[in-house]
């Protein structure tokens, strides 16, 4: 047996270090990846979101109703962003995802509390993401005991006794059993589509440059737009097949509810596929090698998974992270998919997310076209 040669190992080791420093992108990965991601995700991700947007329909404006609202806000989990005038308005706000919670204080609230006659308030939660609402719902349990401590004095002091002065009725909408899969599986559609499509295109185009076939292609009369459409069209088909497979499995294996919104879903899927492909194409105009294209795709994938609301509640993130998350197309795609499948929303209700996806497609495709060169300059 031959012995190990330290000199030979050192030779390879030195060569490896030199190559590492030559490839600036790899170098960037080594430093930026851990530092950037630690700062970004460490501060952004929060599994116990607070200050969740809440709409209120206060049919009783009395002091006890006001105290109840004050106690709700003081719990730290709720932030009243809207005062609704009708149950319909309240309903819409939850459906569109504008608020996470809707609180109704019925007109006879004070009267019933005073009489000790089963007073109730209704809290409807958008429970499509169980993780986002879990903490807030637990906080509701202690609300009746603390909310009216200052109001129940004098003649009604007896109501502050053994039993709670009122009851909080919690209505978990869209996902009453708080099944995580209902939220995660539609979300996976977004993650899987972007993972395969962005990477496949980025690698597919970079490969042409790396192998030198792009040089021949550029010497032909083929125009950039023709090359782009021709190269991307097959992947649109790939994306559609993936979508169908994921949806069928979601239904068959996870019994994910499909409440409708098919047109909105189809539109969202199409925009998202085209946007992901355009992004892959854009990456390929920047990356010089397939390895770089792969690394850049990863740079994109991490925030897509962590900041989009796929894994952690979007509303749990600080404002700056939400802004960052709003730039990522997956965020809007997830809203479309979850909204359409779990809530049965139509295009009119989902238009902000669909418009955001459309904007992304136009911006990225435009940028990719501007960067793609018909020459090798």
């Amino acid at each position, binding site marked *: 047996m031959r012995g190990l040669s330290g000199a030979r190992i050192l030779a390879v080791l030195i060569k490896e270090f030199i190559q590492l420093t030559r490839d600036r992108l790899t170098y960037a990965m080594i430093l930026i990846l851990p530092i950037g991601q630690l700062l970004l995700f460490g501060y952004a991700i929060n599994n116990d979101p607070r200050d969740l947007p809440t709409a209120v329909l206060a049919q009783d404006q009395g002091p006890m109703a006001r105290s109840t609202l004050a106690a709700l806000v003081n719990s730290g989990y709720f932030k009243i962003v809207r005062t609704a005038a009708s149950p319909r308005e309240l309903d819409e706000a939850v459906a569109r995802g504008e608020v996470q919670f809707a609180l109704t204080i019925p007109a006879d609230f004070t009267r019933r509390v005073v009489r000790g006659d089963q007073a109730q308030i209704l809290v409807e939660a958008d429970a499509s993401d169980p993780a986002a609402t879990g903490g807030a719902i637990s906080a509701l349990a202690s609300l009746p005991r603390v909310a009216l401590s200052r109001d129940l004095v004098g003649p009604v002091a007896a109501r502050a006794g053994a039993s709670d002065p009122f009851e909080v009725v919690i209505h978990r909408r869209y996902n009453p059993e708080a099944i995580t899969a209902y939220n995660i599986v539609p979300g996976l559609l977004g993650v899987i589509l972007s993972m395969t499509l962005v990477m496949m295109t980025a690698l597919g185009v970079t490969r042409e440059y790396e*192998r030198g*076939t792009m*040089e*021949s292609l550029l*010497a032909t009369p*083929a125009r950039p737009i023709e090359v782009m459409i021709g190269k991307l069209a097959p992947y649109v088909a790939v994306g559609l097949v993936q979508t169908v497979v994921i949806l069928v499995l979601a239904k068959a294996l996870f019994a994910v509810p499909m409440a409708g919104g098919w047109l909105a879903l189809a539109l969202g899927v199409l925009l998202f596929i085209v946007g992901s492909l355009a992004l892959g194409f854009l990456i390929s105009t920047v990356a010089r090698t397939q390895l770089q294209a792969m690394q850049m795709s990863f740079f994109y994938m991490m925030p897509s998974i962590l900041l989009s609301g796929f894994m952690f509640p979007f509303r749990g993130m600080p404002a700056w992270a939400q802004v960052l998350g709003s730039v990522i197309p997956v965020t809007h795609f997830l809203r479309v998919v979850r909204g359409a499948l779990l809530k049965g929303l139509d295009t009119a209700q989902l238009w902000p997310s669909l418009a955001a996806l459309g904007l992304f497609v136009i911006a990225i495709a435009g940028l990719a076209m501007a960067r793609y060169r*018909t*020459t090798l300059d």
Partner: protein
Amino acid sequence: MSALAVDVRGLNKSFGPRHVVQDVSIQVERGRITGFLGPNGSGKTTTLRMLCGLLTPDSGEGAVLGLDFRRDAEAVKRQTGYMTQKFSLYEDLSIEENLDFVARVHELDRRRQRVRESLERLGLTARRKQLAGSLSGGWKQRLALAASVLHAPKLLLLDEPTAGVDPKARREFWDEIHALSAEGLTVMVSTHYMDEAERCHDIAYIAYGRLMARGTAEAVIAQSGLITFRAEGQTADGTGADRLAGALAGRPGVIMAAPFGAALHVSGVDRAALEAAIAPYRQPTLRWTEVQPTLEDVFIRLMGQSSDNFQ
């Protein structure tokens, strides 16, 4: 119609601080094969790429195939075939699929027929289903050539087409190029091989971005003014003639002294000085003859000159 297929003047191209092509003017007659020679990094590939619209020149003007090569780059592309230095067909497509792709990209009529004819001309009809990546180097080059002339271009640009190809395949490749030229195709080919240079009708020598010499092989040799002596045999103490290269190289009047097998070529431009330099070695055992300089001698001389100018 002008008799020149390529007539461009004052071509310039820089990549950052590197001025890769400097004021190059090229004239190529229709139906002729022009060899484009020069050391590595001399700007040959860049010049060819500018002519076929792959690179945008910083300055320069002129006509390719009677068209303004900058303004009508698209039209030039349609009539130009370009074969890259590196094999640039799809290795994971079959021979036939590659040709079919090229035919479609050029929107050729009678596509199937053209592909079939091309396969027959190549002699690859039986192997048309084979993946291009599995072909040998020589066959790859012939396939790439067939692909670059499939749309019947009027001008063919070849960038070091035979690098790494064995002599027999090279011979066949050149036979094919001459056949195409005989049919009226204008060919510009860059190469490092002197035997290939001699197979061209005309030669253009470019070094460090500048065009140094142009004309037929004979004219280029004559223009160089180079005088070459050849020594054969041994010195008095039994050293082979080829071993004298080192001793002669530094002498005044000697531009270069290079061994050719067992013989030695000593060249210079000043006959008297050259004679004086070799005088000490005019020994009975060494046979000195004046010979015609080879193209290689001339090019090495040009290379030395241009690098002097460059520094």
